[in-house]
């Protein structure tokens, strides 16, 4: 089947050679991520080459990142009522979503960090549904982060929207070690997803975070109506950012949101995207985030772990529930993938 040198149905591309063969040499051997055109070729591979693509992505992950899996827990400190209009988000106050505003108190926040640490997780991310933090939120973060750092052995990350330079500096001074701010999708697709702020504004926050010495966590959501070309564009835009971590979410069509009518991404499509992202970013922490339960199920989760993923969020998400923690920990044990230890991350 793959002998015809120009047969696009088999994913071979004539003179440039088969994309997975090229990736083996370029990404696996040399550690150099695929270009946008190359990522697109991977995303266009026919279904029968999915297994091969996943196997290569797994080899790349093992070679450049090792077998360890970084485990993280997340919690919503401030839920709902956000003034922004991200079309996938059930926490926007602009849509008729069933998600009502809620605040988590400090004791429950610290308890959530403790429960997360018990799973073996090394990362705990505090998230707020805001455009950017106000003084009240900054103060809650200051108190919360201090309490967690005093009582729990875990790295604290935050995700609080767009920041000013002063806020970046203050978070760094509090000891926040990583900051999450997703670009969400390709720059060219962003205006179809968000209209209340720009991709560039998000990019600016990420640059400030990096300059202040915090680790950069930046990913997005697959399945928001983007084309394969835009998915490739996004992978490469992320690679250019050189984030320490990329969380990969798969769209959950949430009631009341403008994307409620979109389909849940298909498993094979999601898996090939995982492989392609790993081949674009051989050395980044690539994390399974929201939506994997709907899109991939239990079997697909294992395939993803064997297809380029090297980090997971365990337990529940912000407004959605995850599968039981024990199930994820058992999966890692079955796959013989050790949980990354805290002293390896400092």
């Amino acid at each position: 089947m793959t002998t015809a040198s120009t047969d696009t149905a088999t994913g071979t591309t004539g003179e440039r050679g088969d994309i997975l063969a090229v990736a083996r040499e370029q990404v696996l051997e040399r550690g150099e991520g695929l270009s946008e055109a190359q990522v697109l070729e991977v995303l266009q591979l026919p279904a029968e080459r999915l297994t091969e693509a996943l196997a290569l992505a797994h080899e790349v992950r093992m070679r450049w990142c090792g077998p360890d899996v970084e485990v993280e827990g997340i919690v919503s400190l401030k839920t709902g009522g956000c003034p922004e209009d991200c079309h996938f988000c059930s926490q926007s106050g602009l849509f008729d979503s069933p998600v009502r505003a809620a605040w988590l108190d400090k004791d429950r926040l610290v308890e959530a960090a403790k429960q997360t640490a018990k799973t073996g997780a090394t990362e705990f991310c505090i998230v707020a549904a805001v455009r950017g933090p106000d003084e009240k939120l900054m103060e809650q973060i200051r108190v919360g982060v201090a309490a967690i750092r005093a009582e729990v052995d875990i790295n604290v990350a935050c995700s609080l929207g767009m920041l000013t330079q002063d806020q970046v500096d203050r978070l760094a001074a509090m000891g926040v070690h990583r900051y999450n701010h997703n670009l969400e999708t390709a720059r060219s697709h962003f205006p179809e997803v968000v209209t209340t702020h720009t991709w560039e504004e998000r990019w600016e926050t990420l640059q400030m975070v990096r300059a202040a010495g915090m680790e950069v966590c930046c990913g997005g959501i697959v399945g928001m109506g983007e084309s394969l070309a835009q998915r490739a564009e996004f992978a490469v835009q992320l690679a250019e950012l050189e984030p320490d971590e990329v969380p990969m979410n798969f769209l959950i069509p949430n009631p009341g949101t403008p994307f409620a009518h979109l389909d849940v991404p298909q498993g094979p499509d999601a898996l090939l995207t995982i492989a392609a992202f790993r081949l674009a970013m051989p050395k980044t922490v690539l994390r399974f985030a929201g939506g994997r339960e709907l899109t991939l199920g239990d079997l697909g989760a294992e395939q993803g772990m064997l297809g380029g993923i090297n980090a997971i969020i365990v337990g529940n998400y912000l407004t959605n529930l995850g599968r039981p923690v024990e199930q994820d920990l058992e999966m890692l044990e079955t796959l013989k993938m050790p949980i990354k230890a805290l002293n390896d991350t400092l």
Partner: protein
Amino acid sequence: MFCSFCGGETASGDHERCRARLSLIDPPRYCAECARKMVVQVDPMGWTARCSRHGERTSAEAAQR
């Protein structure tokens, strides 16, 4: 009785997809007794959902049912 996912009456309409979501990834959003939107807090290991009229439910209680 009302569907905790969509808030519709359970006796009318098709709630199969609602039940699937509730069994997989969604906490209850509407009070089953009065269909009010509840204030829901999800945390890493569970959730609490509070109706202003009918009080609080938790994931721990739900698991015992």
